[in-house]
Structures are given as C-alpha cells and as structure tokens.
C-alpha cells in the first residue's frame, strides 16, 4: 500500500533547500567579512611606494618590493622545473606506460604525494636541496622544494586532461599512418593543453601562497634586497605578510593587510587566467 506522505516529503524538500542555502551563504559571508576587513585596514597603505620599498623597521616606510620580486623569481623557476617534468610524466603514464603493478603503484603514490602536508616537503627540501646539494637558502632551493610540492597536482591534472582527449581522435590519427609521437604531438597535447594549463596555473597559485616549506628551508623573513641570481637568499609574499602580522605594533598590521591585498590580487589574476582557459577549451572542442 502506498501511503500518501507527499506533504511530509515536500516539507523535507523545503527544509533541505533552506539548509543548503544558509550553509552556502554563511561561508560566503565569512569570506566577504574577511575581505572587507583586510581591504579597510590595508587600503590606506597601498601605494606605488609600498610596491617599491623594501621592508623597514618603520611601518610607514615598509614596502613589499623584495617579497614580490622573490615570489616572482621563485614562481618563474618553479614553472621551469615543474611544468616540463609534470607534463612529460603525465604523458608517459597516460600514453606509454603499460598498465601493470608497478605503474599502478606509481599512480597511487602520486595521488598520495598530493596529500602530504607541505611542511613535510619543507623538511625534504632542507635535507636534499639545502644540505645535500648545498644550495643553501637560495631561490633555487626554494624553487626545487616548491616544485616537489606541486608536481603531484600537475601530474594528476595533466593526466586527467590527456585522458579526456577522445580515443576516436587518436585512432583517427593512427589510421592515417601516424606514429605515437605524431599523434601525441599534433592532437593529444593541443586538445589537452587548456586543461593542462588550468592545472598548472592552479598549482602555481598554491605555490605562491605556501609558506611553511619555505620557512622550513630557511627563507629569510627580512630581506632588504632583490635577488639577482638563483643562488641569492629571498623571501616571498606570504612570509613577508606573516612577518608583519606577527609584530606587536598596530601600524604593521595595516602593512600586513596591504601585503595580503597584493597577494590576493596576484592569486585572483592567476585564477582568472585558469577560468578563461577552461572556458576557451570548452568552446573550441565540443565533442
């Protein structure tokens, strides 16, 4: 027998709807309050001087130049190191490797590595790059450490992008006498590229916001110069912000807020590129 419980079910329906609405909006409100607070505190400190000055003992003189350039230096080398390694590994795993126990083991461990806390990569970087290879607390040591951190994410997202390329395209290429390399080079990579780039940029965003591993390998918190070679010491935006925020003077908290705004602008800009690329890819290849 079917009970007429429609009224009850509709009630549950509307409760669920309201509950999910509240949860969504409450988290958005928290974010908005945070952004508002940071903007109000930091906006007065934002100026060209702030971008052009080195950190200082005096809040009104303190600027973000060394941190911003340190971040850019690091990000450049992280890109140069992690993108080729990550994308080529993804191509190997997805296109060339035989599916056996060893490759499955590698796959599972890459996924695991993506979940390892960043501080652990810091310890690893300290042991390998700073101590063993004697790179000291340089831009290069920081870049290698950060590359290790984001490599798993790049590999996983690139593999997904490559896997999403329809098999029929590959078969079509083979059917006109293409080699595997030609198929990958002319069809798979171009089609997967927007997806690969999206993954790359999102992991770059992660790299620019990470602090713990860099503090672990001994990136400095007070740097009054811009790195000129890869072997120079450096600092980055989040480290600088952390440094300012942990000072007792209230004026420095304003400087920290201004630093956060700069960091957020860089991050939002990178995410915007990722979204743009994703939409672009959806439009171009509609299978």
């Amino acid at each position, binding site marked *: 027998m079917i009970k007429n419980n429609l009224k009850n079910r509709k009630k549950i329906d509307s409760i669920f709807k309201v509950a999910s609405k509240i949860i969504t909006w409450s988290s958005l409100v928290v974010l908005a309050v945070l952004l508002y607070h940071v903007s109000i505190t930091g906006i007065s400190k934002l100026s060209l001087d702030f971008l052009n000055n080195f950190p200082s003992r005096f809040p009104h003189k303190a600027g973000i130049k060394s941190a911003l350039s340190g971040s850019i230096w690091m990000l450049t080398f992280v890109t140069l190191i992690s993108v080729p390694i990550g994308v080529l590994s993804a191509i190997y795993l997805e296109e060339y490797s035989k*599916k056996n126990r060893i490759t499955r083991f590698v796959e599972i461990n890459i996924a695991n590595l993506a979940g390892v806390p960043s501080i652990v990569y810091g310890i690893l970087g300290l042991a390998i790059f700073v101590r063993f290879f004697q790179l000291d607390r340089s831009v290069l040591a920081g870049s290698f450490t950060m590359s290790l951190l984001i490599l798993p994410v790049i590999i996983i997202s690139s593999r997904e992008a490559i896997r999403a390329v329809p098999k029929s395209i590959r078969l*079509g*290429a*083979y059917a*006109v*006498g*293409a080699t595997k390399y030609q198929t990958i080079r002319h069809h798979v990579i171009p089609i997967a590229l927007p997806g690969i780039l999206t993954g790359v940029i999102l992991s770059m965003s992660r790299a620019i916001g990470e602090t713990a591993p860099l503090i672990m390998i001994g990136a400095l918190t007070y740097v009054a110069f811009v790195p000129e070679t890869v072997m120079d010491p450096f600092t980055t935006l989040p480290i600088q912000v952390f440094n300012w925020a942990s000072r007792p003077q209230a004026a420095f908290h304003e400087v920290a807020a201004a630093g956060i705004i700069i960091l957020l602008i860089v991050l939002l800009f990178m995410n915007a590129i990722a979204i743009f690329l994703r939409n672009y890819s959806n439009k*171009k290849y509609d299978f």
Partner: protein
Amino acid sequence: MILKTKNLNLFYGSTKAINNCNVNIEKNKVTAIIGPSGCGKSTLLRSMNRMNDFIDSFSIKGEILFDEKNIYDSKIDATELRKSIGMVFQKPNPFPKSIYENIIWGPKINGFEGDKDKLVEESLKDAGLWDEVKNRLNDSALSLSGGQQQRLCIARAIAMKPNIILMDEPCSALDPKSTAIIETLIKKLRKNYTILIVTHNMQQAARVSDFTLFLYEGEVIEFGDTEHLFRNPKNKQTEDYITGRFG
C-alpha cells in the same frame, strides 16, 4: 585477390572472437561484413589494419595476407601498413582542426612533397564534399554536419592513396539522407579502391556490396556473391538472419 585470411583466429584474452576464418577479398570490389551484434564483425575488420594492436588483451593466431605478405609478420610495420589500408570509423571523428588540415595532415606527417592544394581538392572531390566546402576550407571541421564530417573522414582516408579502405559501420550515426549519399559514394569509390564495410543494416549490404560475408558468433557462416547470398542463401542461419527471423 588483395586480402586473404588464412586460418585466422582472433582473441580477447581467452575469449575467442573469430574462429578459423578463411576468406579472400577481391580487389576493387565492395565486400560487406554482416551479422548480429557481438558476432566479431568489427574485430575482424580492425585486425585488417592492425587497429586491434591498441587493445592490450588482443591476440591473433593464423595469418592475414595483404599482397601475399602476412601483415602480422614482425617485419611488417603497422604504421606503414595503415598508409595502404585506410579506415573510416563508426562515429565521424574529424580532427578538431580546419577542413584543409584534416585532409593534409596524414600525407604531411608521412612526408608528402607535392601540391597540397591539389591533393586536398582531389580528395574532397572523390569524397563528394568539394562543392559544399570549397569556400570554407579553413573553417573548423567540427562546423560540418554529421554526414559531411563522415565524408570528410572518407576524404582523409582517400588522401593517403590507400589500396584498401575499411569502413566500420560508417552510416550508423547518420540520417537516411546522408546515408544515401555515402552509399552512392561507396559504389563510386570501388573503381579505385577495395572496400570492406561492416554494417548491421542488411539492406545496406545488399545495396552497396559485391560480396557479402555473414558472421555469426565468430564463425564465417556464408561468404559469396551478394546477389546470390541474398537471393538463395545456402545456409539456414543466413536465411534466418537476412529474412529478419533473428538478429
């Protein structure tokens, strides 16, 4: 005789997909492979240009002779072989590039050094698509209709100047009008090419082919002249299938 199978057995893992197949495919004729779903039609077709090589569990016993040479011989390079034995797939699969680039890509990567524009024009004309696309060769191939895309894929295969074109249910994703156009095209193409076509549409086999091969559960039940096979099938199973009693 251009293609010949000799005691051919095809396997997926331990499952036998084709059992002891011995057929001779005539040059410049259309041979249709018919049979109910899962009888091994596509498997047989795809083994002819070694497209099954991409399936890990696939294995073969016996021989497929193309110009008297076993194409599964270790001396034969599959990439090289596919230049001579082209393929058109079930679902149109043009590359997400321009119409022009779709045609010329195959010859280009194989070292073609001739008049590219001429080759594109000839191939598109042979595929009966030229008049529809001649003013927009640089448009994306994905802007074409399904039927046009399939003819583009045929043109892409033709551009390689193959000896044989394999067609794996080329009309199953198309409307009746596009199907009719492609069937007319197939009849025309037999002048220059040997065509093997897999179809689950018996009327289509009767309309376009010179020879018909009826497969059932991996066995060749009957193979012969199309008109003869459809009019007086020797085998009871063939008769049941073509009269629609099963399948």
